[in-house]
């Protein structure tokens, strides 16, 4: 039983709520999920001046207690004490944007009516001043009937005052809350406007910064060009900056497995730890730098307010295939990894829009496909030059990306006209003021993301890799037998082979497809292992693997293999995150099904065409 007082931080979107929450709790935060819904629960600890601990919970931003999205429903239920997995808050901190009181006071008034001990944080007073707006805090206090503290959360200003006020409030006796609040939004809105007008001391009209920036960033021609440039830099960074840390992690994984191999005697245990756990989890953890860099950009773009502008610019195009502008960022993130991409779909209000985005996200070429593409292209596509600076290999790689994007757009189009027909498909977003986020807030965001990622690597992925290792290692091959054929995995592969033979896949590929379920890039090491286990005289070095492939696979098979990986849902983590985000097995199974059908069809089409052309 937790007896610490629970204080909820509530407010309208873009009031700077999360920054204030970060300012109050620092990095001492926990990110979880409310049971049964895909809404994140952010909580943290705060110690009052007298040493009393207080639990703070950051509620999702809401415009009123009448929810228009699942996030807002959680906010309402928590505040009314009806949310599963959360107790009724003992007090409230309401965050309002000083330069948008007309709007934010509406929700604020509704919250004050609840009758809980309440403090209002009049946030971003600096930006209001920048816009020429001078407010009177005392007038607000009188009109609202609760303490009002001026804050600038991103600069950590006013935080001590807020803590003192919180301290006083939690020491005072509490007289019980009201169950019924005004739900007449129009009435509340008008009252909010009256109070906002009364609180304005002076207003000097100035050309607003945000408006000036928007005339450039939302310019019909310049806007898309700048967006493309930002995306280009982001991708360069995700791939270029991650190379060094990625190789450090790879080295660390290698030395760890050497260390374990040295300490443990040869046998089942060592094989399980080294070949199963370390190899499998290690392969996935090497993606951590890319994911962190990606999230750095996403958090920066979100914090500055640019993200919504990107959605604004892309909305019409996305609308053409039945998605909304909000799907743009999740799909973009999926180029690095579908897992953060699918997690980022939480910002999409419309459930059908969101589900469509989740279902097509795996078609974006994630970085785990790169090792496979690189290997096969290097082995089978001649390094010919088509034009100055344009090589055939690069064109094939580009073609694979384009095929994925086209596939995703077509799939979205079909889904929105089939199983996911209907729904609002609307696009209604607030364009917040631009501001420079505190790097510390970005860092906290990256920290919580990497914790979530590593937790998954340590649980789901660890579990799967051990199972796959066991399947591939038992029973042991006798003399003259091939491990790849005798093991359970070998038998399963033979089963798979009968299915994939028509599309040009051999037993080696069938065997590689199985462990590649854990993570696509494992296919490369799996093929390498098969060839090295089966023929111990050959060393399985990366350079040799290319040559081996050239001898054992036809060009048609290689091309079919590439086509397969454009579509195949070969990733347990993606399936797991889809299950979590859609609260059930229905949609992940649907996703796996339709992607396998597409993969089979396209690999087959590629193979048969190539064979017909005599390749």
């Amino acid at each position: 039983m937790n007896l610490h007082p629970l204080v909820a931080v509530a407010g309208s979107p873009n009031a700077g709520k999360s920054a204030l929450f970060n300012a109050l709790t620092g990095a001492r935060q926990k990110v979880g999920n409310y049971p049964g819904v895909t809404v994140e629960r952010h909580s943290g600890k705060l110690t009052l001046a007298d040493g009393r601990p207080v639990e703070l919970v950051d509620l999702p931003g809401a415009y009123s207690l009448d929810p228009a999205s699942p996030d807002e429903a959680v906010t309402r239920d928590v505040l009314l004490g009806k949310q599963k997995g959360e107790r009724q808050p003992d007090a409230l901190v309401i965050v309002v944007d000083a330069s948008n009181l007309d709007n934010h006071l509406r929700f604020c008034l509704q919250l004050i009516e609840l009758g809980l001990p309440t403090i209002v944080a009049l946030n971003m007073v600096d930006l209001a001043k920048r816009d020429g707006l001078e407010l009177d805090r005392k007038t607000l206090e009188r009109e609202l009937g609760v303490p009002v503290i001026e804050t600038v959360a991103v600069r950590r200003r006013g935080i001590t005052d807020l803590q003192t006020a919180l301290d006083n409030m939690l020491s005072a006796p509490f007289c019980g809350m009201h169950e019924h609040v005004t739900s007449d939004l129009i009435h509340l809105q008008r009252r909010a406007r009256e109070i906002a007008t009364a609180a304005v001391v002076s207003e000097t009209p100035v050309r607003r910064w945000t408006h000036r920036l928007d005339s450039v960033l939302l310019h019909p021609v310049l806007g898309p060009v700048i967006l493309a440039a930002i995306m280009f830099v982001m991708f360069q960074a995700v791939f270029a900056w991650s190379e060094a840390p990625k190789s450090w992690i790879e080295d660390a994984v290698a030395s760890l497995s050497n260390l374990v191999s040295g300490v443990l005697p040869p046998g089942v245990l060592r094989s399980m730890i080294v070949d199963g756990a370390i190899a499998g989890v290690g392969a996935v953890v090497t993606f951590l730098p890319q994911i962190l860099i990606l999230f750095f950009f996403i958090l920066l773009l979100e914090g500055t307010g640019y993200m919504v502008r990107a959605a604004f610019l892309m909305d019409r195009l996305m609308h053409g295939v039945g998605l909304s502008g909000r799907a743009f960022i999740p799909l973009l993130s999926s180029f690095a990894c579908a897992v953060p991409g699918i997690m980022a779909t939480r910002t999409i209000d419309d459930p059908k829009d969101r589900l469509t985005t989740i279902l097509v996200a795996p078609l974006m070429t994630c970085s785990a496909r790169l090792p496979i593409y690189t290997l096969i292209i290097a082995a089978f596509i001649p390094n010919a030059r088509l034009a100055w600076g344009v090589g055939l290999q690069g064109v094939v790689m580009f073609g694979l990306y384009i095929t994925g994007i086209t596939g995703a757009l077509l799939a979205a189009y079909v889904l929105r006209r089939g199983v996911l027909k209907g729904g609002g498909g609307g696009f209604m977003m607030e364009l917040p003021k631009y501001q420079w986020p505190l790097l510390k807030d970005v860092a906290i965001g990256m920290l919580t993301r990497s914790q979530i990622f590593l937790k998954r690597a340590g649980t789901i992925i660890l579990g799967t890799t051990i199972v796959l290792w066991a399947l591939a290692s038992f029973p042991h091959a006798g003399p003259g037998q091939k491990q790849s054929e005798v093991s359970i995995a070998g038998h399963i592969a033979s089963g798979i082979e009968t299915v994939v033979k028509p599309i040009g896949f051999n037993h080696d590929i069938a065997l590689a497809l199985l462990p590649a379920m854990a993570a696509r890039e494992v296919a490369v090491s799996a093929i390498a292992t098969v060839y090295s286990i089966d023929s111990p005289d050959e060393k399985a070095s990366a350079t040799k693997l290319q040559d081996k492939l050239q001898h054992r696979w036809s060009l048609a098979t290689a091309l079919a293999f590439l086509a397969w990986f454009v579509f195949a849902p070969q990733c347990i983590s993606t399936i797991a995150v889809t299950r979590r985000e859609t609260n059930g097995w229905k949609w992940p199974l649907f996703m796996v099904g339709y992607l396998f059908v597409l993969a089979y069809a396209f690999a087959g089409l590629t193979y048969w065409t190539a064979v017909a052309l005599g390749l």
Partner: protein
Amino acid sequence: MNAPFRPDVISLDLLKVGTRARVSSVDWAALDEGEACRLRHFGFDEGVTVEPLHLGPFGRDPIAIRVGRMTVAIRRRHAGAIHVLPIQ
């Protein structure tokens, strides 16, 4: 609640960028419940001053509109449900 017909009242999607106008009525019935709720959240209400600021680069959709002290983006279709009287 239809406003009496006024010849100079136009729907918000037809209002030129940079022209301020006052909302004369909102055809709530043309919007579904969630959309209507969101528009109310944004502060769309009779008598409020609005001003289109930017248009999307493709098909001039969506529209960024200043409403009260905030800027919101809505699609052309939804702006069509909002009737405004331009301020001369």
